């Protein structure tokens, strides 16, 4: 247990190292102290640590991303980019980022290739959940917002419109599919892995599309001021499909957790 705690603290220290240098020098030590205090509080209250640690890592990773954005893209461009945090591809990417960091940091001494397929799988599961649920959440929040403010919320930005979500997704998918090509066109990887990835993606696309279609009338009703439960069958389909992908994501994380924390021969 003590080993786990010191390992978690060491991992958090490594995560903080990804902040811009100025930020890290000014606040890094204080952040570490605060994280240690929060862990101590959870342990004293006998509350489970993994969920809390995961939340802190994700929240900090988003903070790191924001700080870098603030440095590299001032003004209007930065504001536009910050708004796109709500886009499904980026939300999914940000959530898996801490695991990618853990993989890189903890397995660097094992001389292994980066598991693109695994992270694509993780990303795809989250992407499916966020693609189906985020528009419903936005419509629901906009409806609540309109109850106290008649000015409609501006929801659509560069990456949240359906067309740009599709383009972004295709770019990421193509990127993941093209990576094995770097190993050589005649290799076993190209002949087996790439077609398999496309078949798997095509298979997984069906429930995603079904979920999006089921979500449509719910979103329409919410935008018109109706109830979330106006289409119970559609809602059931949406919840079931989202749950399926959420379980897929959690199962992959649990299955691969030993690898993320650096256990040798974990597969």
């Amino acid at each position, binding site marked *: 247990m003590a080993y786990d705690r010191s390992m978690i603290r060491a991992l958090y220290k490594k995560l903080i190292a990804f902040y811009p240098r100025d*930020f890290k020098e*000014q*606040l890094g*030590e*204080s*952040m570490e*102290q*605060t*994280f*240690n*205090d*929060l862990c*101590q*509080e959870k342990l004293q209250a006998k509350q489970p640590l993994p969920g809390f640690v995961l*939340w*802190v890592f994700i*929240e*900090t*990773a*988003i*903070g*790191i991303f*924001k*700080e870098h954005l*603030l440095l590299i893209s001032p003004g209007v461009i930065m504001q536009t980019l910050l708004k796109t945090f709500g886009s499904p591809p980026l939300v999914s990417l940000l959530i898996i980022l801490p695991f990618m960091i853990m993989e890189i940091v903890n397995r660097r001494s094992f001389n292994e290739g980066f598991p693109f397929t695994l992270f694509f799988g993780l990303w795809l599961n989250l992407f499916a959940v966020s693609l189906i649920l985020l528009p419903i959440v936005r419509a629901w929040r906009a409806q609540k917002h309109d109850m*106290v403010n008649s000015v409609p919320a501006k929801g659509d930005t560069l990456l949240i419109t359906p067309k740009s979500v599709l383009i972004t997704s295709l770019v990421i998918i193509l990127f993941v599919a093209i990576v094995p090509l770097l190993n050589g066109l005649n290799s076993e990887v190209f002949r087996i892995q790439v077609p398999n990835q496309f078949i798997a993606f095509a298979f997984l696309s069906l429930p995603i599309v079904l979920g999006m279609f089921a979500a449509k009338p719910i979103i329409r009703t919410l935008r018109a001021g109706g109830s979330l439960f106006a289409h119970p069958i559609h809602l059931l389909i949406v919840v079931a499909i989202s749950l399926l992908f959420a379980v897929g994501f959690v199962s992959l994380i649990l299955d691969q957790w030993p690898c993320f924390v650096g256990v040798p021969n974990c597969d």
Partner: protein
Amino acid sequence: MTATSPNQPLTPAVFHILLALSSGERHGYGIMKQVELDSQGNVNMGAGTLYGSLKRMLDAGLVKESARRIDPEMDDERRIYYQITGTGAKVLAAELERYKRIVTLAQERKIFPRTYGL
């Protein structure tokens, strides 16, 4: 991002941090706990949000780092404390004044009882 002029509205994170520091110097964990207490558990600030806001507040001169010392209620580690500056206090006062005006306006228009059932 952070308001340096008393006329600019504050973000919720900056407002809550200033409010937490208005009653005394605190370290990061202390700020988190005070924010949670002040908001009656409604605001649960993560480390990324807290320190992102603190960075901009330090840059804007709303808060400053004070001497490191041991928190008598915690372990014997020397912690980094933060304190509100004169500018920070003025900005917080201006924000509270703005809230007060809005509440007065809402009371005058009798919005409270109808919308919030008070």
